[in-house]
């Protein structure tokens, strides 16, 4: 247990979530937008950063900046130690067996591309099948389309139910002996649905397929244990977890990583190079060609410390409270349709208003200081599935308050007023 968590547990009753104190940790929240206090509800796109993360980045560049795994000088040793300490923090956060199972990448997108181009190209044959779902983000669709084009494998899609859930029965029907890989989001970015990934992984393993879980929308909201899930690959981004942009993580079981060819070639990923051949490093360095995002990794480590200190379960409970309040208010609004009504959701509320396009909703909310995402959320197939051109999406984080939910609801009513 980190000291910060100890302090928090001793000073805050377990069932009281001190948002005021948490908000004081996030400088960007304290500003006015169009003359109104900022209500930041675009957390599924990216979260604001706590001071601790900002300070760690600043301190790294002020004091320790050096390249990693290269120098014998003091700064390089400090930078390397901090970079590898961040990897260990990620290991604990995901409960991976070894820090060597964690590859630092730019984000979830790069992690998925890495698996597709390295594992996928080495293992897929014509007519093999890759199974995805109808509710995936483009980043968990396009890399597999590209891979299928390169290998002759086929893409199969599990349809989504009307409420945004995935049916395990329909999924099981699509799995078959040709299935080599399943790629599924832990939580849908457009709808908020928490998918039954543990069960899906177990079913895939029965057919001999490996499973990649896109955890970008899960790790900020719920405890993830990759060994309990038994997933083969798990990907997430730092910036949705209060960390910096440009840093993310690919978890992979060591047995898979050891057999995978490099994703990119360059420095740091090799033990020896001649003009005839190169001897590649062991994982994870084999997959980290070039100078990595050292500051980003260290910043991600600080973000994980922050989340640990507050407690991921407490964060999840708080966000569920906000979601329930927002859902109750919105569900009663005439002409409003909530897209994604699965019983198990993270704090994401996607909605459309009759006769008001999502972009107009977005602008009118912005004028009232309320930041939401409007558009297709990089999930055009989801929009087509629910027959909407776009939605407005409010997404909650640990620093949002019930009062902010009320501001959102009032702002949506105002949008309805403007459009009569």
């Amino acid at each position, binding site marked *: 247990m980190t000291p910060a968590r100890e302090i928090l547990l001793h000073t805050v009753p377990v069932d009281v979530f001190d948002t005021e104190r948490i908000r004081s940790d996030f400088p960007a929240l304290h500003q006015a937008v169009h003359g109104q206090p900022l209500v930041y509800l675009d957390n599924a796109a990216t979260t604001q950063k706590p001071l601790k993360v900002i300070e760690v980045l600043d301190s790294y560049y002020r004091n320790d900046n050096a390249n990693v795994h290269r120098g014998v000088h003091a700064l390089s040793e400090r930078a390397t130690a901090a970079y590898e300490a961040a990897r260990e923090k990620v290991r604990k956060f995901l409960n991976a067996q070894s820090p060597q199972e964690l590859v630092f990448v730019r984000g979830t997108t790069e992690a998925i591309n890495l698996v597709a181009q390295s594992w996928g190209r080495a293992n897929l044959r014509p007519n093999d099948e890759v199974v995805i779902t109808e509710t995936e983000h483009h980043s968990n669709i396009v890399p597999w389309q590209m891979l299928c084009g390169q290998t002759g494998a086929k893409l199969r899609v599990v349809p989504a139910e009307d409420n945004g859930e995935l049916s395990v029965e329909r999924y099981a029907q699509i799995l078959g002996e040709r299935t080599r890989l399943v790629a599924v989001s832990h939580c849908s970015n457009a709808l908020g649905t928490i998918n039954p990934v543990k069960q899906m992984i177990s079913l895939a393993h029965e057919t001999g397929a490996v499973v990649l879980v896109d955890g970008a929308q899960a790790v900020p909201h719920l405890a993830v244990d990759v060994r309990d899930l038994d997933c083969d690959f798990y990907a997430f981004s730092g910036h949705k977890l209060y960390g910096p942009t440009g840093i993310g993580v690919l978890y992979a079981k060591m047995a898979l990583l050891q057999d995978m060819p490099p994703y990119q070639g360059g420095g740091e990923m090799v033990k020896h190079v001649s003009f005839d051949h190169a001897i590649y490093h062991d994982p994870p360095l084999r997959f980290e060609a070039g100078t990595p995002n050292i500051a980003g990794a260290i910043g991600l480590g600080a973000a994980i410390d922050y989340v640990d200190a507050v407690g991921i379960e407490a964060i999840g409970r708080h966000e569920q409270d906000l979601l329930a309040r927002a859902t109750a208010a919105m569900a009663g609004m005439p002409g409003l349709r909530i897209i994604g009504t699965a019983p198990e959701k993270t704090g994401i509320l996607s909605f459309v208003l009759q006769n*008001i*396009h999502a*972009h*107009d909703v977005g602008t*009118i909310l912005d004028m009232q200081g309320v930041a939401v995402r409007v558009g297709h959320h990089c999930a055009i197939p989801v*929009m087509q599935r629910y027959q909407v051109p776009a939605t407005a999406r409010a997404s909650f984080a640990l620093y949002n308050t019930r009062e902010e939910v009320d501001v959102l609801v009032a702002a949506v009513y105002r949008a309805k007023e403007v459009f*009569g």
Partner: protein
Amino acid sequence: MMTDLRSLYEEVILDHNRNPRNFQHAPPAANHVAHGYNPLCGDELSVSLRLENGIVTDIGFDGAGCAIATASASLMTESIKGKTVEEAKALFESVHEMLTQQGSAGDLGKLQVLVGVREYPARVKCATLAWHTLQAALRKEQGTVSTE
């Protein structure tokens, strides 16, 4: 704050959004058609028109978009009908200038209500989509014109 909102969502814009003119109107014997798409937000519309002796004798549009895109398309069809190709192109230039540059582009009549959009850079492409599509139709380009 509501006053600010009204600077974008003027009554004329709201009216043209609620009751778009020349909407879902396919001119008989239309000889110029183009399809417009804004990949950023998914707005889609098509413009079809009848060009006779260099004059736009009839024009209509169809599709789905936000209030700004719809009102802009509606106002455009009203102002283009009866214009020569050269006049239509000149109007496109003036509207484009009004939406993207500070300062006056001259009196654009009813189209002037769109001027509020330029304070919202993220929304300028909503307003220009119909106009780009019109340009494509006049050039008789095939396929889809994109704002990106």
